[in-house]
């Protein structure tokens, strides 16, 4: 299997027994770890303590937990004030509310002030499922990556979410972390390297000298779909590299350009509007530095609707067969 051994991914990755854990659990674990390591870590919640997995932190450090009620504008502006007093605030709500509803407050009181508030957006993507379009955030990365000073991270699984939270607590910068609602396959392990701003190659041809047909750049839980497609393509004789792009901003330009140079065609895979998302960030980079054909798998300017995760991902053409089709389209476009 052409999994990159340096990444020390979950050895059960492609087994049916691979663990399924929510990113929210990873966030909750990371928050407690950060709170234990640094007494300046505080958490603020807008009436969603259980849902955003802040309960453990609240139970352990009640004096550092603030409940603001259903008021996301207040959530972030209070956090901004706390950060001005040397605190490291984590604010958690559904991404349509935060950073959706409170975007201007994030812009002015967090980014313009350049204070280290950590905005955690939960329930992103259509995989939120039955709650329907109003609760499926598909625009959050676009909203956050246009803000100067803001770091944007989209972890691929529960473990990476935990590591992202721990790293964000130490980075001294405004930071956005987007998370999914449902349980997702655990792709990484405790030993997988994680560094903000660094992309990683998780799947590559065994023979490094071989000519590569295509590069797939994925972010979030859809990395697992990209890996499944890569595995199938490999069995069909195609040479594929898969990149986990967990940090959308700052973009690991060197890694993205290198991949485009070796693969000659790129597919981006994300559970977000194509406009303004990770694919857009990659396209901006490659258009300037090394233009190659790019196919974008993501939401095509629609709102979602109610349904199961699988139904919705298929309906909106973000499933594995759509990634597979995008790969072939991109390869055909190579000169």
């Amino acid at each position, binding site marked *: 299997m052409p999994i990159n051994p340096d990444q020390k991914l979950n050895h059960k990755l492609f087994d049916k027994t691979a663990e399924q854990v929510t990113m929210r659990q990873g966030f909750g674990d990371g928050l407690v770890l950060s709170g234990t390591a640094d007494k300046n870590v505080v958490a603020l919640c807008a009436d969603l303590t259980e849902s955003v997995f802040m309960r453990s932190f609240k139970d352990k450090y009640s004096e550092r937990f603030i409940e603001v009620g259903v008021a996301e504008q*207040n959530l972030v502006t209070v956090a*901004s004030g706390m950060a*001005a007093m040397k605190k490291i605030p984590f604010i958690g709500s559904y991404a349509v509310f935060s950073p959706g509803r409170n975007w*201007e407050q994030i812009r002015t009181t967090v980014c313009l002030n350049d204070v280290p508030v950590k905005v955690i957006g939960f329930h992103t993507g259509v995989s939120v499922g039955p709650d329907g379009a109003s609760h499926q955030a598909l625009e959050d990365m676009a909203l956050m990556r246009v803000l100067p000073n803001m770091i944007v991270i989209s972890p691929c699984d529960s473990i990476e979410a935990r590591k992202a939270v721990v790293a964000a607590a130490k980075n001294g910068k405004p930071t956005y972390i987007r998370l999914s609602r449902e349980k997702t396959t655990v792709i990484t392990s405790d030993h997988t390297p994680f560094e903000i701003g660094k992309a990683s190659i998780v799947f590559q041809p065994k023979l490094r000298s071989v000519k590569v047909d295509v590069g797939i750049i994925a972010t979030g839980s859809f990395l697992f779909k990209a890996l499944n497609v890569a595995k199938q393509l490999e069995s069909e004789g195609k040479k594929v590299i898969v990149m986990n792009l967990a940090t959308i901003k700052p973009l690991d330009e060197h890694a993205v350009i290198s991949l485009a140079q070796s693969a000659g065609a790129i597919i981006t895979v994300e559970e977000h509007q194509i406009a303004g998302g990770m694919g857009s960030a990659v396209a901006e980079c490659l258009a300037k530095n090394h233009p190659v054909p790019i196919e974008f798998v993501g939401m095509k300017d629609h709102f979602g609707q109610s349904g199961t995760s699988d139904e919705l991902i298929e309906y909106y053409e973000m499933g594995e067969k759509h990634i597979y089709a995008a790969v072939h389209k991109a390869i055909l476009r190579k000169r």
Partner: protein
Amino acid sequence: MAANSSPLTDDKIAQLTKKAAEIRISIIESLIEAKSGHTAGPLGMADIFTYLYFHKLKHDPKNLDWQYRDRLVLSNGHICPVLYATMAHAGYFLVSELKTLRKFGSRLQGHPHREFLPGLENSSGPLGSGLSQIVGMALADRIDNGKSSGKQFFCLMSDGELDEGNSWEGAMLAGKERLQNITAIIDRNNIQIDGFTEDVMPLNPLVDKWRAWNWHVQEINGHDFREVDRAICEAQSVFDRPSVIIAHTIPSKGIPEFERKFEWHGKPPGTPEEIETALKALRSWGGRVKSPDHNS
């Protein structure tokens, strides 16, 4: 460093009156130079800013990171000419720098930007967010130092920005948390861009609204140093809830021709006649105000 517990003597009032007159002149001179900016609010709040920076605030213009300083957040950032002028006169930077207001490369941005000007506690402009920021500061301080840190937390805000829902979210949380070291001061000048506040979006009964969120409420004449002092001392003696002071002010106070007119909310004196009227009025301020300071 100003002392914050000394009594407000007649001599001190005379000094403050003189200082406020100087600050008003600096405000209008900087606005004339900038050729844009807000006139009514800065002039209306000059007395309260003067009182805070020259009598009440625990601060040190030469030690900006002094951790025991009081915190002052300006929520309605558009009245920053009064903040800048007061800070300059208090020694944060040279008064001559006020002439750079709103110009390229200036530290005195059109709306306050703390990355440009050290000494600002927050960047502001979009309305309604300052109160929540001071709530966050007070909460952080309580986590670190308990309820008696000795720091006071001031939020200066406008009546017009109470149209913003975010203002009331902050008010609710401060009431819930009983943040007794917060004093919010509302510039109740009754005007906003589109007209009088009670026509655009009625705020009254304003006292009842704040009481309903469990705040201690006082109403004062915002141009009377004795009333300002008494209200702030009372606010700081209330130990079970945050305080709000509704300070009735006259927009454009000091230029009789401009006073109480909402047209002067968002523009500086522009024509030669307007400039002459404004400067003449402010430069003769000492002769018009009732002041015990006969030397001014």
